[in-house]
């Protein structure tokens, strides 16, 4: 169906666009004035968790736009919708999906960490410990999911 192809294309563009836009945001975060070139500010774990929080946030938001479009397809009947979400089941789409899950897990854990500082200012003194705990939690939650999903995608890929 031509409609499905169109919507599929739109979802695809938006999703890839999400990734690119997230990259663009990363560059924007460290934008400098013309009279101030020089390497990126070194900063500590706080700066980098903050940057990653922004990038994952923007990436997830941009994906959401694509997701709104695919859900919109359901308004035209189940065939169109099913054909559109076929896109997500393609083996080559899996890495993107894994990234999305990683971004969400990270954003969630880091978000909780930030909220803790807001309500208990004294926790700011232990910010590095909190950051490392948060990163470990993210990895622990993310790795099994990634292994399962990528393994699945590998089986369906033409390479296996």
């Amino acid at each position, binding site marked *: 169906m031509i409609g499905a192809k169109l919507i599929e294309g739109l979802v695809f563009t938006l999703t890839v666009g999400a990734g690119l836009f997230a990259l663009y945001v990363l560059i*924007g*975060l*460290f*934008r*400098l*004035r*013309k*009279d*101030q*070139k*020089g*390497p*990126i*500010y*070194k*900063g*500590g*774990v*706080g*700066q980098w968790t*903050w*940057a990653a*929080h922004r990038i994952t946030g923007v990436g997830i938001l941009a994906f959401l736009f694509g997701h709104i479009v695919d859900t919109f397809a359901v308004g035209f009947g189940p065939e169109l919708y099913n054909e559109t979400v076929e896109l997500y089941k393609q083996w080559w789409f899996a890495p993107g999906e894994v990234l999305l899950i990683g971004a969400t897990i990270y954003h969630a854990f880091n978000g909780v960490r*930030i909220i803790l*500082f*807001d*309500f208990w*200012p*004294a926790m*700011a*003194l232990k*910010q590095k410990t909190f950051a490392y705990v948060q990163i470990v939690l993210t990895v622990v939650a993310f790795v099994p999911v990634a292994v399962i999903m990528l393994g699945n995608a590998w089986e369906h890929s033409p390479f296996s």
Partner: protein
Amino acid sequence: MDVKLKLLRFNPETDTEAHFEEYTVEAEPMDRLLDVLHKVKWYQDGTLAMRRSCAHAICGSDAMVINGENALACKVLVKDLAQPITVEPIRGLPVIKDFVVDMEPFFAGYKAVKPWLITDPHEHEPARERIQSPEERAVFDDTTKCILCAACTTSCPIFWSDEGYVGPAAIVNAHRFIFDSRDSGARERLEILSQADGAFKCRTAFNCTAACPRGIKVTKAIQEVKRAALFGTV
């Protein structure tokens, strides 16, 4: 020992963009970076522009980006720095020349929070001594240490992209009065800091806390101000 330096130079009269220039200076390991910069300025290139005054980490004029991080040139020793030592002006403020930046936006944020004692004449008779317990004093002790060097504010990624943000230094100085038991301007200041350019622009990146040459727990102070603004409690 020989010290290699990479200095970010910018002369508004001749340059369209800033560029790095390299220098080699003879120095002792226990020399401060400021001494080395002096040697460049005094013996190699008199056009190097920078600010410094006390040379003892108290006037706050020589904050710079040193090897990628904000610090006072008069407070870091050459032996503790990896070579070549790169020095850039602090970020987010317009560069006037070399390491001299226009501090006006920084001070605008500072002034915005009314950094002076506000007293209520009805509450406090000027004729009487105003007692403050050591416990009451301890609440804002940390934020009295600020020397307004701008190392915190110009290490803040939010400030780099948004000059309107009052910045960590302004919030630290607001904290100093908001939590002072003798001051009655807390409500006023919290109102100012609750606005779009106020304390809530802080996204807890913690660069400010690491950059403060006085060791002020900047982010913690900002969080206390946010909390006070949120719940109206001091």
